[in-house]
């Protein structure tokens, strides 16, 4: 699974363009097109409702946007985005370099632990951080001997930035490390032979090759920080998602819609900016030449500082949250009078995630097929529209669908199908990306050969292409599964009455300070997520 897959083709930094590979019978193409149209119609539903909702606010809506408090929300979101993207890059790039190129001891272990930070749900990390770094938290008790009675606490900007930084830095590490491993050794040698020293080689030869990967990672981090709900809600930082949640909870749909549209515009702006800034890659080799093993960089006297750096990153990103969960599991905390069996939570969480992952994968299939096999202008537009989920944060989809169901589709209101539709809209891009890239790696001649031997188009697809693409599709499935499992705002707002998942249980336990009820679901969620991540990463290894 390449991370860049989840970025829409139009904005993909690798300059990937689907091309016409195999001529398709018109009838088959039409079936795929009709299904795709239906899927895209559902995907666009939230946007339609948000625009309607915002328009119904009228002049009041415009006044609402222009008041100081709303402008403050924009400023908060931008500040959080810039700060967390900067911090994640500052942590992620050295981490990728150390685990990718250097003779750092135990570098695979550091890498795996670093990526484990990626599966931590932001709300869980935030809850544990507010305990660890709170006014009377663990950090304070460590500082007690030095006369520190009380810390100022990290609620607000600091806490939100800290949380988002540590759950997103793996999004920088993954692409940057992959780029580091792809670097061309002979370019470095050429640089050295022209008299550059090591530092100059890094700045003038290696860094330019990493730039697209770094900017892709930064884009992912920035998108995450704009769309994340858990961290800002727990940390009481009034960014867009939290403000929208508060308005949605009070059923003030017009205001919530106005805020949601603003957030979508900001996200779109970010994607366009990134696409503009990015210049198509010229960092590849032209001649034939054999691939050569990369030379490992010796750390020398930097070995211990580097080890310390990795240790601190892992300690804050992974160890502290897990430690706090264990502390709550075994420590003395208020007993929750509502006991929910772990098997019920597990069944609901795994069940709804599995169903959603299957639904999303099936819905993505015709779109990926069109993108690869029938890349006309119309079809490309269709596929790009299906990527709308990328600019719709979960809370925004939830808001739109509550609005939609409570007015126009009462039979869907508070039902599981509506929740699954919400997940599908949000995570369809992940699945299309994975399926499309799996298809694009298959030589169309295989399918053509099968056709020439008498198989129909569908049979060739089922017998030749699908099995070959199955690994990539499965990785996409696992990615959707992983994300649905830890999704919070949509689950919270759209779930049927009485339907509990790990995320819901953790949230309501946090709400009422039943810390022991956070621990077990939290640890279980992390464990299952790590398994899903392992499937995704195995695939990446296979591809590389």
């Amino acid at each position, binding site marked *: 699974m390449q991370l860049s897959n989840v970025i829409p083709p139009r904005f993909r930094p690798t300059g990937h363009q689907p091309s016409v590979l195999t001529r398709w019978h018109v009838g088959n193409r039409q079936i795929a097109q009709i299904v795709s149209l239906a899927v895209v119609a559902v995907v666009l539903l939230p946007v339609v409702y948000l625009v309607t909702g915002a328009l119904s606010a009228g002049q009041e809506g415009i006044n609402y946007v222009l008041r100081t408090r709303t402008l403050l929300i924009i400023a908060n979101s931008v500040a959080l985005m810039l700060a967390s993207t900067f911090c994640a890059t500052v942590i992620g790039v050295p981490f990728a370099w150390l685990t990718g190129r250097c003779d750092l001891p135990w570098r695979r272990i550091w890498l795996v632990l670093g990526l484990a930070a990626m599966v931590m749900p932001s709300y869980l990390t935030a809850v544990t951080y507010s305990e660890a770094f709170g006014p009377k938290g663990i950090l304070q008790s460590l500082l007690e001997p030095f006369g520190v009675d*009380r810390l100022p606490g990290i609620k607000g900007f600091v806490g939100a930035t800290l949380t988002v930084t540590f759950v997103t830095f793996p999004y920088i590490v993954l692409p940057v490390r992959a780029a580091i491993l792809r670097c061309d050794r002979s370019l470095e040698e050429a640089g050295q032979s022209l008299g550059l020293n090591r530092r100059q080689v890094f700045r003038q030869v290696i860094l330019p090759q990493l730039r697209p990967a770094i900017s892709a990672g930064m884009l992912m981090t920035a998108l995450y920080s704009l769309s994340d709900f858990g961290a800002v809600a727990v940390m*009481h930082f009034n960014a867009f998602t939290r403000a929208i949640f508060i308005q949605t*909870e009070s059923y003030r749909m017009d205001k919530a819609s106005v805020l949601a549209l603003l957030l979508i515009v900001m996200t779109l702006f970010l994607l366009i900016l990134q696409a503009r800034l990015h210049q198509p890659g010229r960092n590849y080799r032209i001649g034939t030449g054999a691939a050569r093993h990369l030379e490992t960089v010796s750390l020398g006297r930097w070995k211990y500082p580097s080890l310390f750096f990795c240790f601190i990153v892992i300690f804050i990103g992974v160890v502290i949250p897990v430690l706090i969960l264990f502390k709550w599991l075994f420590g003395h905390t208020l007993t929750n009078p509502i006991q929910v069996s772990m098997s019920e939570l597990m069944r609901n969480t795994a069940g709804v995630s599995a169903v959603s992952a299957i639904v999303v994968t099936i819905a993505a299939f015709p779109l990926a097929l069109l993108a690869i096999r029938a890349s006309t202008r119309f079809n490309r537009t269709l596929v790009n529209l299906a990527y709308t989920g990328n600019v719709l944060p979960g809370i925004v989809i939830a808001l739109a669908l509550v609005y939609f169901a409570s007015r126009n589709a009462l039979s869907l209101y508070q039902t599981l199908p509506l929740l699954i539709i919400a997940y599908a809209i949000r995570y369809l891009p992940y699945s299309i990306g994975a399926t499309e890239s799996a298809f694009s790696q298959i030589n169309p001649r295989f399918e053509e050969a099968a056709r020439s031997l008498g198989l129909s188009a569908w049979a060739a697809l089922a017998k030749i292409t699908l099995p070959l693409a199955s690994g990539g*599709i499965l990785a996409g499935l696992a990615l959707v599964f992983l994300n649905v499992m830890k999704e919070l705002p949509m689950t919270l707002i759209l779930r049927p*009455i009485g*339907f509990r998942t790990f995320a819901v249980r953790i949230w309501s336990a*946090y709400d009422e300070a039943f810390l022991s009820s956070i621990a077990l679901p939290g640890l279980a969620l992390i464990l299952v997520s790590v398994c899903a991540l392992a499937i995704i990463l195995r695939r990446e290894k296979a591809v590389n």
Partner: protein
Amino acid sequence: MSTYRFKLSGIVLMLIALVIAPGLTSADDALTVYSGRNESLVGPILEQFTEDTGVEIEVLYGGTSAVANQILTEGANSPADVFIAQDGGALGALAAAGLLAELPEETLARVADPAFVSPDGVWAGLSGRARVLVYNPELLAEMGLELPDSILDLTDETWSGLVGWAPTNASFVANVTAMRVLLGDCDTEDWLAGMLANGVQPYPKNTPIVQAVINGEVVVGLVNHYYLFRFLAEDPEITATLHFFPGGDVGSLINIAGAAILATSDQPDAAQQLVNYLLSDTAQDYFAQTTYEYPLVDSVEPSVDLPALGDIEAPEIDLSELDDLQATLEMIEESGALD
């Protein structure tokens, strides 16, 4: 990845889907309860109701204001049969919108004090609760602070950064409404602004505030009286105590948790059965013994060492006057308390 493995994973996922699918369909004939009270407080007694009567219920939990707004938005489409609120004001808001059905005389008569039922007979109080200041006596002594005589004194500089509140909690919202009724909008806005300027610490609900006071994160917190007793029941050693603001201060508001039946309910009989059950001795005893609230029927006594409901120097206010929920929510939002 081999085809075999792919198929296998697919089959496993399908199996998971099949196993859970039956559990996901809900019983259509169940009584639907919208609860603005936490599951940890009313969940056990609602389960007991099903056990005792065989009436299946499904419960939507949320904040009282949020749930009230949800019912207002859903209007005639609302699937709710019964609304349980932690604040008389929210019940009043739904009553004012004409969404509640009238309760029979004998149900209303169960509540001993007529101040705790709706004047139009559309909702009944289930339990009483007092707004209090929970404090950490050790920290208070350490810092040389004295307990304030009024909730209004908490804007004083000496309390800077030491107070906790739950600005989205319905009991807090009701307290602010009471303040608007007794002191006027201007003074209420000033108080909210003063608290924020004083670095008041926000928490999602009451329990985290009590936890924070026990941990020493804040020294005092604005809560309902009963949360502390849940902590004391598990660990009598903890250091936290209640302070009732004296002299009819608005900070000592006595409010109710109550229930009402929606006029649009398709199961009014079962709904009536639930409301009656919640006023029965069994349920009132539960509220007294388990959640440490004030029972509202004559036949049940409060369990813990609390001042009698009549002895609290509460402000003179009619609970049905607290129904201007929307304006209070707007004011709290405009004050920046939610930012």
